[in-house]
């Protein structure tokens, strides 16, 4: 018998979800502490760096956990489940933006803003690489962007991404390569050796 109960830090996400379902607020606090920041940054990246929208999405996602904890699919890991929920929320937002703006995926408006900075980015070199990188990332179609973000921005494994998106690992790997190659080609002028070559 253990003298001390394990700390909430030692509980797995799945155990915390069970405790949340039974009304344990400490479990919710711990789960929020683990995932609030990564999810906020994920929404921030996926939703055109809109901080307010990202905060709202984090709130809505955890509100769903509070109000319907039974919606958690116990057959899956919590991490892949919550990212799949977040990804679906982003997809729904893309659709809403598409309806409002009449654009294909709602990203063009933000891309246009980014395009205005192309010349400046080329001139200021690496310090603005990040902004153009984000702009080009937003230009990617949804399925390639989500795979790339999950792998290289959120640090998930290919297996986890396959579970989240419910597609094969090979397909995930192919999508990530495609997105990477696209970004590399679009941002080639920021590459030091290439810049020298052009200069």
């Amino acid at each position, binding site marked *: 018998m253990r003298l*001390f109960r394990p700390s909430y830090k030692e509980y797995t996400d799945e155990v915390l979800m069970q405790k949340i379902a039974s009304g344990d607020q400490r479990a919710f606090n711990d789960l929020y502490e683990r995932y609030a920041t990564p999810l906020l*940054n994920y929404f921030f990246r996926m939703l055109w760096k809109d901080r307010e929208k990202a905060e709202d999405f*984090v*709130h809505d996602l955890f509100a769903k956990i509070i109000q319907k904890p039974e919606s958690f699919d116990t057959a899956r890991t919590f991490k892949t489940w919550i990212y799949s929920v977040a990804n679906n929320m982003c997809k729904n937002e893309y659709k809403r933006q598409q309806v409002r703006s009449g654009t294909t995926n709602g990203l063009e408006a933000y891309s246009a803003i980014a395009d205005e900075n192309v010349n400046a980015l080329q001139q200021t070199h690496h310090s603005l690489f*990040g902004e153009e990188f984000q702009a080009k990332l937003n230009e990617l179609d949804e399925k390639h962007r989500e795979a790339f973000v999950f792998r290289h*921005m959120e640090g998930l494994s290919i297996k986890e991404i396959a579970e989240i998106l419910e597609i094969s690992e090979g397909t995930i790997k192919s999508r990530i390569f495609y997105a*990477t*190659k696209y*970004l*590399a080609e679009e941002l080639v002028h920021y590459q030091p050796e290439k810049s020298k070559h052009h200069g």
Partner: protein
Amino acid sequence: MAKDIFDIIIEKEYHQLNPKELTELAEYCKNEHEFLAMKHVLAHSKSVATGPKIAPREATKQKLDELFVNTHGRQRSRPFYFHPVFQAAAVLAIGFAVWIFPDNNEIPEKTNLAENSAPKTAEKTTDHSPEEKSPVISTKETPPENLRKTKTPGIAPANGNSDLMEQAEAEEESRALVRYKAETASEMVSSADIHADRYEVSATMKSSEEAKRSYSTVSAPAVSVKDISVDADKSPFTSQPVTSMNVAAQKNVMNYLTAKY
């Protein structure tokens, strides 16, 4: 997490790739230039992923906390003494107290202490055990003198010592009678003041027959404790305490003397 092809692109240079890795990359990187371009993008992505992140606002958490309370209700906190850490600390504190305050009831041998020089018999007399304090007398012990002499009419004796008691009473009575007879014989005639208020023994009485007649006609036997107690210091049994037993004994003596003389 197992390394995949993207980790290899970030970590290795193009000329460090082995044939297997080159084969896997061939579909996406046809030459070193494309490899470096991908490497640059992935390195930037990694720096973004590991770089500073924005933190959620406190207001978001507060709204969620309110929602949680409204949905699940407020949890009742457990008393602090139910916490295992507190219980363990209490056990440790008790253990430490026992260790730091040992049992000091033992008297050191070399300590100078006063000795009680009284004899053991004296100790026994002053030793008040609960049994001796109790008014209940053990059947094996000899009853006190006043109780030994007490005789309750109509109640059978409680043990076999009653015969001995009666025998002792009889002997005592006979001794008192003999002593009284001797005293009476020598002093009755001359000591007219003895029992004068009751018996009105005349100084002129010459014989016991006259005294007998006078007693039977003038005086009356004592019938109460008070009567006897008043003259207790004058009675021949002054050495004994005035008790109902003594009254009975005196009555017997007086009756005996009346009958005899």
